[in-house]
């Protein structure tokens, strides 16, 4: 009943598709960390308009399904004359969505930086920008790394949604093979293992960075 030949035959295709999944994860992850950090800094900046903008963004992203956000981004891009951009739409939607969660993570980490450090830097005469770059963010990064890793695995686990706008990543490739072969377990078993494997790699990478960061201090 278990067709192991089919499984072996589909492995190269699946391996190729998983590079698309990894690319999606990396690009969306970078976008989400950049957006989340900016939005967290906006929330702590003390400027009312920036604060409200960031709050609205977080609330909107957390209050609607990623599935809907994905379709909205995908349908809006052609309106600003960007066509055939399914992959880009997926990166933007997943990045925007995850950025809201990263905002909360980074905000917590920034607030955990002792107030005295900022005051000391201020007293020494460092500019606001230098204080952020040299004092606050490096320390915040160390605190929020475990939570960020968890968020990145969530990003990885949301990439299959890109299949609904026909990005041929790992899951969609599986669906395509499955619809021709009329059998599922031989396809979805390796796919599930693939995701677990990629998540493990992510975890190891983050452990490595964590170890390096704590060595430096």
């Amino acid at each position: 009943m278990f067709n192991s030949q089919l499984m072996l035959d589909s492995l190269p295709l699946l391996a190729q598709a998983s590079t698309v999944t990894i690319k999606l994860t990396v690009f969306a992850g970078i976008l989400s960390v950049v957006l989340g950090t900016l939005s967290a800094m906006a929330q702590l900046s003390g400027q009312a308009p920036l604060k409200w903008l960031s709050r609205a963004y977080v609330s909107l992203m957390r209050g609607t399904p990623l599935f809907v956000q994905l379709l909205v981004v995908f349908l809006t891009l052609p309106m600003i004359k960007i066509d055939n951009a399914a992959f880009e739409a997926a990166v933007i939607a997943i990045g925007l969505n995850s950025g809201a969660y990263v905002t909360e993570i980074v905000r917590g980490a920034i607030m955990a930086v002792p107030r005295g450090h900022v005051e000391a830097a201020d007293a020494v005469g460092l500019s606001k920008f230098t204080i952020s770059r040299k004092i606050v963010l490096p320390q915040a990064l160390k605190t929020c790394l475990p939570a960020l890793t968890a968020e990145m695995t969530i990003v990885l686990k949301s990439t299959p949604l890109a299949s609904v706008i026909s990005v041929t990543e790992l899951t969609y490739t599986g669906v395509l093979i499955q619809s021709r072969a009329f059998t599922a377990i031989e396809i979805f078993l390796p796919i599930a293992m693939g995701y677990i494997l990629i998540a493990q790699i992510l975890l190891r990478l983050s452990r490595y960075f964590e170890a390096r960061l704590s060595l430096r201090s």
Partner: protein
Amino acid sequence: MDWLAPFQNMPALLGGLVTTIWITIAATICSLCGAMLIILADQARLRWLRQLVRVYIEAILGIPILVLLYIVYFVLPDLGVKLGEIPSGVLTLTLYYSPYMAEVLRGALGSITTGQRDAGRMIGLSDFDILRRITVPQSIGIALPGLTGLMIGLAKDTAILSVISVQEFTYETKLVVSRTYAPFEVWTVVAATYWVLLTCLEQLTRLGEYRLNRFREMR
């Protein structure tokens, strides 16, 4: 721009919304039951059962929900289990969210000190009474924020069920969009509806949280 389109198709959209709401409720109840089963199984004496549960939890933490949905919907029929679209959807959500809810419940139950349970036993309460009168009333206020977060996540994930043509809110929306050619307007109204409902749910439980934790302030 055709802002009338979403409102002219209200009946179809509302029908989908109702399906979304009751799938959310059903799956939340099932996940809570699943979470309790997981906690019970974790305390069982059978070693293989504990290990089985651990493997299941690890697998769920690593697998995307869409892949799980495809496994339930495509693989189970090959193994002789034939489910309809909605039961497949509810089963997927239950399988996916039970371990997370178990984690929240375990944390909340663990936050009640053993001294309180010992005291209950000292004055002669049965195990069930200790659970009902001491452990659960105190831990429910602690578990509520986590459970609400998960329930909101679950409500949002019901949108994914549209890929196996469960006729919920997102699925109906896609149909309406293909009929009206007004994707932007319809999706905006639908997204706003999701946002309003989920934000209300969050605020409501915040009220409940306050009530349930009120006894703590009185110390």
